[in-house]
């Protein structure tokens, strides 16, 4: 009984902490900038850039451990 109440309180506390993140994600779900061709290309290139950087980081991490 006491254990269940504690778990319930923990769940409420956690959901209170997570809620602002959910609200912000919901608030900014749709990008407001006009999606022109240049904007689309720029965002696509940024995605490639990030994938490349993360791949390099993972490779470095794996080879360092190895």
């Amino acid at each position, binding site marked *: 009984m006491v254990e269940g109440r504690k778990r319930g309180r923990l769940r409420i506390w956690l959901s209170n902490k997570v809620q602002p993140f959910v609200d912000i994600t919901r608030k900014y*779900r749709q990008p407001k900038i006009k999606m022109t061709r240049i904007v689309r290309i720029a965002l696509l290139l*940024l995605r490639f850039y990030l994938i490349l*950087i993360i791949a390099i*980081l993972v490779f470095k991490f794996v080879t360092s451990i190895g």
Partner: protein
Amino acid sequence: MAEGKDIKQSATIKGDTLPAPIHSSNGLAANSPNKTMGKSSLSLGARFYYRYRKLWKTLKIYLIMAGPGIIVMVADNDAGGITTYTVTGSTYGYNLIWFLILLGPIAYFVQEMTVRLGAVTKRGHAEAIFDAFGAFWGWFSLGDLALTDWLTLITEFIGMTAALSIFGIPPLITVVLVCIFMMALVLNGKYWTWEKIVLVFCVLNLIYIPAAIMVHPDWDRVLGGAIPNLPASQGLGALVFLLMANIGTTIAPWMLFFQQSSVVDKGMKPKDIPFGKMDTAIGAILTVLVAVFLIVVTGTLLLGQPVNSAAEAAIALQRENNLVGTMVAIGLFDAGLLGAICISLASSWAIGEVFGWAHSLNSSRKAARGFHLFYFILLVSAGAMVLISSQHVLVIVTLFVQVIAVTLLPMALVFLLLLLNNEQLMGKYKNNRLQNIIGFSIVSAIILLSLLYAITAMFPGLLGEVG
């Protein structure tokens, strides 16, 4: 924000606004002494007096508006930056002065865009990214900024503790005193007070100028360093790495977030943009001056000596000239403190904007509890890391700062350019064609070099020996 408005209003009441000229049909200002007095000596005197009053009033308004540009640019020469410049000077002497001079206008161009964006949208960079590009890019930018800033803050504490260790002050005392001072600075509840105190530390950063004069360099050779050349004495790999390190320390992601939030917190309006630009230009000149004079110091006294950090350089300089070494150590502490002040605020402002907390330096302690708590946690955790971590961990932190900053910089720059081209958002303040050409060239070059820098930092032997 209210504080900023009050300041401007009081300036207007005291008659500190520029007189609006009334234009007549012949193009001359009707209230100008020219028209009534002719070309007599009295007219010349009156004209001179009018110009003098106008200039004086402009200067007074500028002094009210000055702050964000100078602070961000001088703080750009943080502990990591000072280390980069000492290594540059001791390795290549005066040969790379031209490169630092070149970085001044580039830094100005990038930072000037944040002034316009902040003054027009009244939003910080983090909030602007969330709003324009959606939650994915927003969270990614915010998370990356928070992590980069926290790691950079650790390097600032490393610099500050190392600098004060030269004077026999233990790291624990340094960290505790710095944390107390920085908390007090933010909790004072006035942007105006915070800004003016920080500006005093910016002035202290100019300590390298008298230090350079005291080492009696060969000024002809110093001027020769202002002419572009590529010294190859240490190999191409070492040269490229150092050039990229200098770029990395001159244009950093936190600077964009900091200046835009600072402009918003100060309450700058679109009509204040020219003053914001002037402020940024003066800051860019100061940052280049500090970098160049530090290179002159180390290039004169430590050329050819192996130097790995600014603290090491200060100790070596003390052996050559005790006063100059002491000045470099004081400068290193000041640089670390300025960097820490700005970096911790850049993150706290960004988090406050996105989470909707009261996040102005003018906010009361009660209203801005979340903002102050985040700032406190950031500060204390970074300070504690320096005290509890081994040297090995701190070296890894220093390496990862460079790499993680590189992931954020291109994103922040590309978003900045896209936002500055959004007519709906910027109206008449959007980038013109020339600004876009320059902006696109700078951003492309920075992205390419940043990527190369990250790869070289992780794989040092890739371009040859890095030294």
